[in-house]
Structure formats: C-alpha cells, structure tokens
C-alpha cells in the first residue's frame, strides 16, 4: 500500500458521516478525504477532491444517492468507484444502485472491518463485493422477463470465447484467484482477461460486468 485509498463520505446525517470518518481513518491504507451532506454536495466534492471511493447514502434530501451515483459514474473519464451504504437492504435499492453504476452495496450497520474490507475490494476491483449481493442480483434479474437489449447483446459478440467464459464466472461472484483455479490458468492471465472484457464492453468494473452479464442473458441464474 503505497498511496492510501481516498474516500469521500456522502450522508445527510452528521452522526453517520463523523462515525464513518473515525472508523475509516483508523484503518491503515484508507484516508477520508472529505464529507458531503447530500447528493449535489457529493458531486461537487467528488469533482474537487477526486476520491478513489465514494461512500454514498441512498436517501438524502435534494439529490438522492442513486441519482448522484448515476451522475458520478456517467461523467466522462471518471474512475471513481461508488460504494452504496444504506440502512435498508431492499432489493429495489440493490438493483437500482447497481444499475446506476455502483460498484458495491453495504449496510450501514456493517462492522468496521467489513466496511474497510468493502472499501479496499471496491478500490482494487478484483472481486465482487459480498456474495449475498450477487445472489440478490441474480434473484432480481431473474424476475425480469424482458428480452435482453439488442445493442448489449451485440457487444457480447466482440468477446472471445475465453473472455465470455471469464465474464460468466465473474457474474457468478468468483474472484480472480477463483477464476484462475477454475480455468487452470495464472491469476495474471485472468486479470488480463478481465481488463480486456471491461475495455471491450466499456464497463467500469467487475460489478458492472456482472450486471451486464445478467442483463444480456449471458448468464442465466441457476435454479430459477
């Protein structure tokens, strides 16, 4: 860890902001760069401070966290990762947050260790956060009966067979190491595949790759 992960905390409750600041500052390799009191403030602060990760509350007055996430991740050239933190693990929240471009989803009552771990995973981008979120994602997408969108489907064709295979494993929540084990290749090879997939599909990270895989119907949730 050479440079610490810089975090911006966006929440309308002062107690939450202060609490997370204390908890994350105590973690090695993580540094709280600033705080934002609502969605619009988060956009301003993100532009100003250029954090690596934004901890985003969903329910905020003015601009809510979902919309703020969408604007943050859609901004051209932005590499910021959004970790959505909320009181309720509602399916709609998970789904909307991930669709809006969030890289992870965590409950506010997560322990300090879980919180730090989540920030590191999201910043590194080499694993999907929390397998249970992946399960929810599967459940949520399996409920959608709409046909996969054609332009997305076309883009799958740009992937090689191996890359498609890797993508489906990402969507199942496997980490790079696990995928390497499964395909009997070096982890570095998997990393290369993953970054090529992201570039080809124009995606931010593996979470969004998983969302893509489900949305295109590349991966069919098993057991549904």
């Amino acid at each position, binding site marked *: 860890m050479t440079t610490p992960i810089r975090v911006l905390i966006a929440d*309308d409750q002062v*107690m939450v902001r202060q*609490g*997370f600041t204390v908890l994350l500052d105590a973690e090695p390799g993580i540094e709280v760069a600033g705080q934002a009191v609502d969605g619009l403030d988060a956009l301003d602060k993100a532009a100003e401070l250029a954090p690596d990760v934004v901890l985003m509350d969903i329910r905020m*007055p003015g601009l*809510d966290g979902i919309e703020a996430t969408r604007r943050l991740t859609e901004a051209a050239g932005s590499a910021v990762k959004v970790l959505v933190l909320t009181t*309720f*693990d509602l399916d709609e929240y998970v789904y909307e947050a991930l669709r809006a471009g969030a890289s992870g989803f965590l*409950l506010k*009552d997560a322990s300090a260790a879980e919180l730090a771990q989540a920030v590191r995973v999201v910043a590194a981008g080499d694993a999907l956060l929390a397998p249970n979120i992946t399960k929810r994602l599967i459940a949520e997408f399996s409920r959608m009966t709409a046909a996969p969108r054609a332009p997305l489907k076309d883009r799958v064709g740009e992937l090689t067979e191996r890359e498609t295979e890797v993508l489906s494993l990402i969507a199942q929540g496997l980490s790079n190491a696990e995928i390497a084990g499964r395909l009997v290749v070096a982890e570095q090879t998997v990393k290369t595949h993953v970054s090529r997939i992201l570039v080809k599909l124009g995606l931010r990270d593996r979470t969004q790759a998983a969302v893509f895989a489900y949305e295109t119907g590349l991966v069919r949730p098993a057991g549904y």
Partner: protein
Amino acid sequence: MLKVQLVGENGASARARARKRLAAAVKGLPRALREDLVSGAVGPPPGERPGWLIWQPAIVLVLGLGALLLMIVTVNNLAFGVFRGSGMQLALLLGGAQSLALVVAAFRPVAAWWMAMAVMIAVVVVMELAAVREGRHPWPSGGPTAIMESLVDRGGLYPWTGAGLATQGGVLLLLALRHRFRAAAGALVVTVLVGLMCGAGAVRFGAPLQVSAIGLSTAVLTIAVVVGAALRGRQVARTELVVQEGITEEERARRALLEERNRIARELHDVVAHHMSVISIQAQVAPHLAENPSDALKENLGGIRANAVEALTELRRVLGVLRSEEAPAYGAPEYAGDGTAPHAPQPTLDRLDELVGNVRAAGVTVTTDVTGRQRPLSPGVELSAFRIVQEALSNAMRHAPGARVAVAIAYRSAALTVRVTNTAPDRPVAPSPGAGHGLLGMRERTAMLGGELATGPTPDGGYEVTAILPTGAPAPGPAPSAHPPTDSSEDTTP
C-alpha cells in the same frame, strides 16, 4: 316449495325419494300453513321492515277510502240488492267487517285475510238462510225441475260478491307483499278452496253452478298474489343490495384506515431503523474516541452494537412486512409531486419551506407563520406534523381551488400546534371520491401521539385543520442543526 316438490313428483315417475319428500311436504303442510297463517296472524310479519312502510299512513288512507266505497256497495247489496234478505244491522256488520279487513291488511295481512274469509262464509250462510226463510229455496226433494224453475240470481261472481272479491284480492296482495311466497300461496289455495266449498254448499241449496264465476274469481285472486309476490321479490332484492352496498362502503372505510395505519407504521419504523443504524455506528466509533478504552468499556459498547444490529434485523423484517402490504414498490414515488422525493429521508419540519414552496409553485397562495421557540422535536412528532401539513395542503388544493391557504406552526412549551386554514374556494368544486382519506391519516397520526385534531368548515366558507401534538418537556440545550434530532427519541412518550 310445495309446488316444486309436487311437480318433481309428477315428473320423476314416483321415485321413492320423491315420494318420501312429497309425504314429508304433505305432512309438513298443515304445520307450514299453521306457521304462516296462524302464528303470522298474531306476530308482526317476519323479516325486515321494507322501506315502503314509511308510506304506510298514505296507504292506510287510500285503503280506508277504498274500504268505505266497498262497504257502501256491500251493505247496499246485502240489504237491498241481489243478496237481499239480511237485515240492515247484519248488512252493516258484515260489510263493515269486510271493509275493515282491507284496512287491517296494511298492518296485519294474515289476520285481515282471516277476517275476509270469515265474512265471505258468513255472507253465504246469511244469504242461503235468508233464501230458505223467504221460501226462495227449492228443497232438493222438489226435484231438479223445481231447482231449475226457482233459480235465484245471486250475482255473477257467487259465492263471492263483487266487493268481497275486491277485498280478498286486496288483502291477498298485501299479504303477498309482506309475507313470504309460501304463506301467500297457502292463503290463495285456502281462499279458493273455501270459495269452492261455499259455492258447492250453495249449489246444494239450489244456487246455479257458475264455472265461469269460479274461474274469474280464481284468476283475480291469483293475479293479486303474483303481483304482490313480485313486488316483494323486488323489494327484498333492493334491500339486499342496499345492505351489500353498506357492507362494501364499510369495508372500504376499514381498508382505508388500515392502509393509513400501515403507512404511518412504516414511516415510524423507518425512522427508528435509521436511529438504530446510527447507534450501531456510534457504538463502534466510541472506543476510538477514548484515550485508552478499558476492556469493560469495549465490551459494553460491543453489547450496545450487537443489540442495535439485532434490533435492526428485526426492524427490517417488520418493514418488509409493512412494505409488502403497500401497493406501490418502495422505490415508486409515493409522494412524488407533493413535496417528497422517492429516495428522500422521512421528512421533518425542517423541510416545511420546501413543501410550501412546491405548493406555491402549483399556483396556490400560501402563507406560513412559525411562532414560539423553534426546536427539534421527537422524530414521530416532526414526521407527523409534516405529514399533517402536507395532507392539509393537498386537501386544500383539491377541494378549494383558488383559495388562500395559511399554515401556522406554534411551538409551545409542551405541545406543537399545527394549523392549516384555507379561505372559500373561488369556484364550486365537485366532491372528489378521495375525500376524507387525508383527514383519516391526520386523525390517526394525531391519535398515535396522544394529541388532538379538530377539522371543519370555517364561517367564511373555508376549511380549518388544527392539530395539537404533545411534545413532552422541551429538550434543554442548543439544538443540533442537522436533521433529524438524534437525541430526543425518549421525548416521544407523552
């Protein structure tokens, strides 16, 4: 019933079961008739009191006039006409009794029917006795020729008189109106049978047998019963419909109340869950703030956190249930358009200006007036006050277009007074179907906090909503600027 069974018997070519049923029906016939025509004569008609009974005085008046007319005809007939032979006194008695039956039928149809029957028999008996007394009766010993030669004209409808038939028809009609069909049918059958018996007796005494008269009389009486029964059937159906509508209305009101309570419960649990998650965070933060936290302190804070997390889990379950009851999905804009975004936190009075601003943007003139020492209140009070203002504003916009609205919030020492008034609408409004729903929510929210709600029209044609929400003792010390107040949840209990 009986008729159906009889038909069934004929059609089913004497099946044992049908026979048994018929036997039971026949055996039960006297009892059924006794029930319908004897007990029914004493007590009031069973079942509901039909709506047309409010017309009873008018009906009685008409019946009374008709009865008077019939009485004149009958008395005239009995004393001087073709039925002559009875004395004036007897004629008055019988005619009076017969006419009275028609009036009584409005109250006690079965008793009236008995009266009419008795009068009919009495008339025949009196008639024949008079004929015998005056020697107009040829005795059967006189032989058929004598009978033929001394025919006495007793009127075309004998054994009924014209007036008598009208009376009986009227009585049967009223009976069919007020009693179930079985009773009316039984009365009809008995009437016709007794009429036939009287006729047969009279024929034996020498009167001519007039088949056409019997047919005509039976037809008139049957029509009376059928018309009465049909009217009654319609009335019963309509009454049932009204009852059903009443039930549906009640059901709808109950549903609205439950939905409102559900919404309130959901919002409050939501607020509590947010507080719980803050507690869980603070319990983790606290050890970091102490210089050298002791193990006991850490353990204690760990316990607080564990409990908060556990409570949160339970709260999420409760909210899951409450949300599943809700028609729109949580992400759906429940309050969109009236001041609250879908992903916004539960509102507090801090956002009053925002709410009023939205209403102003819709073209409504709204004034606000906040008095007293402004301070953060418990989340329940803040939320309820906001929602009451919101509902009142929404009602004013819906029911009083063009009216000026005034919102007054008064912070008192132990209560918060919320008052929303509007002037009279500048144009008439059609009553909207959603009326009353908002008031229901206000009432529930106020009642939950142990407060008071007063709503009603103002003398100038406007409307006023006043809610007094107890806040408990004011919290000491300066208020934190951030919403919602995280330190005053114990103020909720009044």
